[in-house]
């Protein structure tokens, strides 16, 4: 390979590979606001989406995203650990906090009501295909721990090891929980559902 060819590969490679999250966080802590913006843009939609899958309320999900980033930016993460795992761990804990704060009465209502009615109105559902609406409704009926594992793995595309870190589980427990959650989801999908 010629030297010119090598140069092109290096340029192309560096163009393709995003700056690691951890490097962006360190840059932010060193005073680089632009680094924060890149990092925040990378995760803000995904993190808010994950929070919504758990708490099913838009305003709460948005607040969780905001609070999680404040905690992570100023928080305890140190080089050596995965930023992504740490971020989702913080988000997950805030979601559990939010679910608990609603109190028993609200949780009972949450269990009794089909999820998409809470937080996601009919406007949202009309934007989904019928299959997606059924899937969303079935997902909303799962207990939060099962929604969490499915969302982290399939929607947020964390590795099974990262999911294990976020949820405080062993890798084999994540696999087992994923398997059970999918089974439960299929059960709900096979039952008649009322979709607004």
């Amino acid at each position, binding site marked *: 390979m010629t030297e010119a060819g090598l140069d092109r590969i290096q340029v192309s490679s560096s163009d393709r590979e995003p700056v690691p999250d951890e490097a962006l966080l360190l840059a932010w802590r060193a005073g680089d606001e632009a680094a924060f913006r890149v990092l925040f843009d990378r995760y803000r939609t995904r993190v*808010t989406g994950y929070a*919504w899958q758990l708490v099913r309320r838009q305003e709460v999900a*948005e607040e969780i995203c905001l609070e999680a980033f404040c905690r992570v*930016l100023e928080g*305890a993460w140190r080089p050596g650990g995965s930023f992504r795992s740490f971020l989702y761990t913080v988000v997950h804990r805030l979601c559990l906090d939010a679910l608990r704060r609603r109190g028993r*009465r609200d949780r009972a209502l949450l269990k009794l009501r089909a999820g998409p009615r809470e937080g*996601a109105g009919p406007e949202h559902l009309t934007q989904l295909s019928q299959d997606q609406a059924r899937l969303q409704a079935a997902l909303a009926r799962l207990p939060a721990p099962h929604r969490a594992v499915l969302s982290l793995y399939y929607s947020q595309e964390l590795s099974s090891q990262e999911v294990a870190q976020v949820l405080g589980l062993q890798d084999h427990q994540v696999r087992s929980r994923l398997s059970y959650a999918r089974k439960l989801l299929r059960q709900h999908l096979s039952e008649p559902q009322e979709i607004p």
Partner: protein
Amino acid sequence: MNQDLLGLRPEDLSPDERALLAEDPDLGRAHAREAALGDALGRLPAPVSPPSAEQVLARLAAQRAPSPRAWPAAAAGGLGLAAAFLLAWLPLAPDEPTQRDRGVAGAPTLRIQAAAEDPRGALRTVESGGSVAADERVLFRVGTSHAGHLVLRAPDTGEQLMPLESGWLAVEAGEHRPGGDQPLSWRPDARPDPGGSETPVVATWCPEPPAGPDAPVSPGCLTTVFQLWWTP
């Protein structure tokens, strides 16, 4: 277990597991079906509008701004770390004077310890009857000397803190935190009164679980009350 490898992405499978899926057509088809369900989940949109970077920066600036309560922040932070360490590692003192224990003398004991977390994440220990600011959150730890069934509630707010769902938590002797390995902090939803609001947090331990969450506890049960004084 073969079922547990279905629907996983290739990078999360070992070479042996990938080979197994390739060699067994039935298993391969089942895997593809589960992976398709996972893909469908991954494509589900969430109806959210995430906050902006400006909102995060504004909140961070507000948190960094000095406040009348902030003068001992460094000291409180240090104390908080020490408190967190103590709370996490030290065994419960046998004669903690800050709670009332009710039960048979010499019988199993039950006690609550608490730490307040300020908005900056600094921790400090709180005794029963101690003050907690409205913007603080409280972490609880409940110690039981015997195995049994435990519940932690804030009766005035109608909230159950542990277990998170209704019912009782089967516990071994030892220390138990709401949220388990991922400890959860708590504060009432309602703002405290101008003069402060007393909020009791009650732990109940029973050797056998009562019939229901609101069923009367038997004489063999223990109840401990931890009073928090929320101040505006």
